[in-house]
């Protein structure tokens, strides 16, 4: 504990005032020669101990009152880094007060005891004063005021969790941070320069450079609060990144001292507590800006978290399929979870898709840690990338995590390439290629509804697949494999080397490959087929042919585990039981890795194996769909089975338009796109205004152009630290050639999803903060934690920071005053000295005149009485 006005402690001598007054009062005691000593001594003996105790307590209260007033005026504070514990100093003072009080209260005859007590009290007060002075000196040494000016970077945590109300007035933490930033500005010297950084998933400076123009900084802060400035950062705070951004800003400052003030709610996420290496570069960048003997200071002001929180968050938006066809219904389930510790009253979940009216679904009250699911069905009329937005409309603490956006790709046609063993011929009906191609596209690719269709008749299911067939030997020359989402190898014995290499590249780049390897297939080829990068293409090893007669095995329905397959098997007309496989090549695993089987025969041999190859996916069937091998292709189960396999491959091979923060978004470009055109692509973050209109939040951001010979041209965007909706802006020449988004040629949306952990609030513990301080200290940067705004101001201004305690002392003084008054009154009430009636004695007439009149009246009868007596 220290004192800002340490000289005021001299006033502690005033503690002796009540004692001196008391002793003077005794010394000036009126001497009364008293006769009725018998009763006085008896009374005093009966009450002596009690009187002494009362006097001592009263004296303690009076001396304590003076001591507390003096201590409060000395402006005590609890230092952020106390050297001498206050538990030592304060008890010394109060023991001294008690000694003084006893010394003043004891009887005059006990002079020796009084002097001993006075000496003890004085000694204790001296020790307490010396300890306080030593604390003051040590604190001054620990918190030196910088000579000359300083550059201060104020870093505001703009993460999602900062948008929660905390405290009694319901103010958002972010608004509190802005308000405290103003205190920091006020605490800076006029010559100091101030930089302003807003930090979330990504940190950026609000002002171009540190400035000493206070009004400009305040104006920027006001703009942050009222939302007129660039949108505050969102997502999860990247604390090392924020420090690095502050260091970049401070580099433009010219003062010798550097301070970074980070105002945050100290959510654990994003602090890299277990990753010391994350702090090395930011700390080094900061350390390099100061002289060798100086240390830059990072002041972390942690805003107190709310005691209770009722917070619902849209945790998940899930589509029943990711490859969505035009006109095909897709189920959307929105999961709303209560991540607080107070129940969230029910509300509505609103699902909006561009060009479609909003759908609403009510959800009931959500208990803490529980979730509710709202289900919607969407149908898209046009192909392209659609932004689907789910919002929870309810009463909860953080509104920022009540919405989630996703980009879904609606496709008109899935291009599929069926590679047959030979060129298509009139005997093709006997070949696997025929069945597989027909299974994918049973009819014309774009069939108009029949003219005689009855209104109540269901729409004819149109296959989304546009199938192209090619012979294996022509595959090497087949143009633009990347345009196909799925390629089917239909019982091809082996591929030429060039074709095999090209197809391997296709898979590694993200394509989907279905291999139907029947008895004609060459195990040597498939088992050794690998991409030019050395990745094995086939997910399973083909064994020697196995024929099972006369009772061939069928499909084991319960083993079919591809998404959608379960629903298919459960259908009564699926004829899954009718399938029998007489000849096949059992699938085994390469080495020790377990086989990733998605289906088995009734004899437990795997019939469908899957795996990934690079960014692509591969499914492998050990049958060739030859009539001599199986009757599968003749059952109703065949077409939906092939469709599900193809859908699965198409989904995994599609581009991901919903990325987690920090991941890279890749926009594949048409083959032949010029690099110059690709460089014209920019990315903008989209902000939705209250009226629903979309505006760009921030300047366009450049992309990285990747000219990969194998994967074709593409652009990548890696600055995905801030969640939200983004759009690739395509320049005009490129937009015209953009065939993937004919409906929205000029922009391609993608979403950086929110880290759901940001809503699960977990706070940084003091031990975590100590770890981070250790990381920074190792790089020569000092980290101090400010518990409140007063400490923050003190640290910024170079004063000794500490929690102010004067209010407690003032309250203590008030309590002592009230206690003194109450005790005095209580003692008076107990003594009843003013209410006790005097002893009735002698004539009761107080009025002497009336008594005299009565006596005269008695005296006036003497003759009669005398005569009477005389006669008697």
């Amino acid at each position, binding site marked *: 504990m220290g004192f800002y006005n340490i000289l005021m402690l001299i006033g502690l001598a005033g503690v002796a005032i009540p004692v001196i007054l008391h002793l003077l009062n005794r010394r000036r005691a009126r001497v009364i*020669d008293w*006769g009725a000593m018998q009763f006085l001594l008896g009374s005093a003996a009966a009450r002596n101990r009690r009187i002494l105790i009362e006097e001592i307590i009263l004296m303690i209260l009076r001396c304590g009152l003076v001591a507390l007033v003096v201590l409060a005026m000395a402006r005590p504070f609890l230092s952020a880094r106390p050297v001498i514990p206050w538990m030592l100093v304060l008890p010394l003072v109060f023991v001294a007060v008690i000694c003084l009080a006893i010394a003043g209260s004891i009887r005059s005859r006990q002079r020796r005891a009084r002097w001993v007590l006075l000496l003890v009290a004085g000694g204790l007060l001296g020790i307490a004063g010396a300890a306080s002075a030593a604390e003051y000196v040590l604190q001054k040494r620990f918190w030196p005021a910088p000579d000359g000016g300083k550059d201060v970077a104020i870093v505001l945590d703009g993460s999602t969790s900062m948008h929660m109300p905390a405290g009694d007035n319901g103010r958002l933490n972010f608004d509190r941070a802005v308000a405290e930033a103003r205190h920091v500005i006020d605490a800076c010297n006029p010559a100091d320069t101030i930089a302003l950084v807003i930090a979330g998933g990504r940190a950026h400076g609000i002002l171009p450079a540190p400035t000493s123009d206070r009004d400009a900084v305040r104006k920027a802060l006001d703009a942050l609060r009222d939302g007129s400035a660039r949108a505050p950062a969102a997502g999860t705070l990247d604390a090392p990144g924020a420090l690095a951004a502050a260091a970049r800003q401070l580099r433009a400052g010219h003062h010798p001292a550097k301070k970074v003030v980070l105002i945050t709610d100290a959510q654990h996420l994003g602090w890299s507590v277990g990753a010391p290496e994350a702090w090395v570069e930011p700390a080094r960048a900061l350390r390099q800006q100061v002289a060798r003997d100086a240390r830059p200071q990072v002041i972390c002001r942690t805003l107190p978290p709310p005691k209770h929180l009722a917070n619902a968050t849209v945790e998940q938006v899930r589509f029943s399929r990711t490859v969505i066809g035009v006109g095909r219904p897709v189920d959307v389930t929105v999961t709303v979870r209560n991540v607080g510790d107070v129940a969230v009253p029910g509300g509505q979940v609103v699902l909006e898709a561009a060009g479609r009216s909003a759908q609403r679904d009510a959800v009931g009250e959500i208990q803490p840690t529980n979730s509710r699911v709202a289900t919607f069905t969407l149908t898209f009329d046009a192909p392209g990338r659609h932004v689907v937005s789910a919002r929870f409309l309810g009463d909860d603490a953080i509104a920022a995590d009540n919405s989630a956006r996703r980009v879904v790709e609606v496709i008109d046609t899935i291009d599929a390439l069926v590679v047959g063993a030979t060129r298509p011929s009139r005997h093709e009906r006997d070949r696997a290629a025929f069945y597989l191609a027909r299974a994918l596209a049973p009819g014309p690719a774009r069939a108009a509804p029949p003219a005689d269709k009855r209104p109540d008749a269901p729409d004819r299911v149109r296959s989304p697949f546009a199938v192209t067939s090619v012979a294996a030997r022509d595959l090497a020359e087949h143009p633009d494999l990347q345009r196909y989402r799925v390629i089917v190898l239909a019982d091809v014995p082996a591929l030429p080397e060039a074709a095999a290499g090209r197809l391997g590249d296709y898979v590694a780049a993200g394509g989907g490959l279905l291999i139907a390897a029947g008895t004609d297939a060459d195990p040597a080829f498939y088992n050794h087929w690998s991409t030019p990068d050395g990745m094995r293409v086939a997910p399973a090893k083909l064994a020697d042919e196995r024929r099972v007669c006369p009772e061939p095995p069928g499909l084991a329905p319960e083993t079919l585990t591809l998404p959608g397959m379960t629903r298919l098997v459960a259908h009564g007309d699926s004829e899954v039981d009718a399938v029998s496989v007489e000849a096949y090549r059992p699938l085994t695993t390469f080495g020790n890795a377990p086989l990733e089987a998605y289906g088995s025969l009734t004899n437990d041999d795997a019939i469908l194996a899957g795996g990934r190859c690079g960014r692509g996916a591969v499914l492998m069937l050990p049958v060739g769909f030859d009539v001599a091998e199986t009757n599968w292709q003749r059952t109703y189960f065949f077409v939906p089975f092939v469709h599900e396999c193809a859908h699965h491959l198409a989904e995994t091979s599609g581009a991901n338009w919903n990325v987690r923060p920090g991941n890279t978004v890749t926009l594949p470009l048409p083959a032949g796109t010029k690099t110059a055109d690709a460089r014209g692509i920019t990315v903008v973050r989209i902000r939705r205004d209250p009226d629903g209109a979309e505006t760009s939040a921030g300047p366009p951001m450049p992309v990285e152009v990747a000219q990969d010979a194998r994967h074709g041209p593409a652009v990548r965007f890696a600055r995905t630290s801030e969640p939200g909706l983004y759009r690739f802006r395509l320049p005009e020449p490129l937009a015209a050639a953009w065939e993937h988004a004919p409906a929205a040629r000029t922009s391609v949306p993608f979403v950086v999803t929110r880290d759901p952990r940001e809503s699960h609030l977990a706070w940084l513990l003091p031990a975590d903060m100590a770890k981070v301080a250790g990381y920074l200290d190792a790089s020569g940067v000092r980290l101090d934690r400010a518990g409140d705004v007063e400490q923050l101001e003190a640290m910024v201004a170079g004063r000794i920071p500490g929690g102010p305690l004067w209010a407690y002392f003032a309250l203590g003084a008030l309590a002592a005053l009230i206690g003194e008054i109450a005790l005095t009154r209580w003692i008076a009430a107990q003594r009843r000295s003013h209410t006790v009636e005097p002893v009735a004695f002698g004539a009761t007439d107080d009025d002497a005149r009336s008594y005299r009149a009565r006596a005269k009246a008695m005296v006036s009868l*003497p003759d009669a009485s005398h005569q009477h007596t005389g006669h008697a």
Partner: protein
Amino acid sequence: MRERMIQRSAMPAYMRLLDPAALAKVHRLELIARGVVEGFVTGRHPSPYKGTSIEFAEHRPYAAGDDVRDLDWRVYGKSDRYYIKQYLEETNLRATILVDASGSMRYRGDAAATYEGQALSKFEYARYLAASLTHLLIHQQDAVGLATFDTQMRGYIPARSRTSHLRAILHRLADTEPGAETALAPIFHDIAERAHRRGLVIILSDLFDDAGAILNALHHFRYRKHEVLVMHIMAEEELTFPFSRFADFRDLEVRGQDIQLDPRAVRAEYLRQLRTHIDRLEMGCGQMRVDYAQLSTRQSFDEALAGYLASRQQRAP
């Protein structure tokens, strides 16, 4: 008035104890013994002896040695037996005034009645009372004795009824100054042993001693068939304990004994103990038929004496 003051100032000190105004107030009153007293001359008080009087008392059988003049010949004529006719005798009173001259009687107080411009201490109050009573009794032809005491007998004047005896008593009263501690009970026992003949014992004291011992001693007087009149003299401050500031109470009886305290802290307890003491005395006196009069020095002694005598006269049988 001035002339009177001049005359009084010219008086001997002991004569100043007789205040003409006070005597004027009480001269019409009498102090009559309630019980029988053994006087030595015929007076106005009931006597235990049968003698010549006009009031018939009783008959008793003749015994050898009786004066034949007292034989009731009428009874003899009727019953042929010798009876002696006895008459009630009235005698004079032998009063002994006991004045407490202990140190506590020196207490004066601010609320005490003034006499000749000076507030009276309890002892002075008692002295004036004793002087007035002596004057009254002697003028009633009664014999008056005086005993002053503190821890021991300071002076004793046996009862005489001569007018000149008044001067001796006043002289002794004027010469006596209050001194040491109080020890009432032994003194009372001593005086009770000294006075063989029944008489009136008048005690002027603040009775600052153990109430039980005092009552025991009073019982001794009663055992000796004395009529006892206790005039309990207290100062107003002793009855109200009106002090409010921290004070050093110095004992008037024991030199060097004092106590410093806040009077408010002990007032209730002090008054409680005092009330208990007075109640015990009052009840004890009532039980043993001791006349107990409470006199506060706030009231002038002449008024107090006149009031007491008047009320005693009213209560007389």
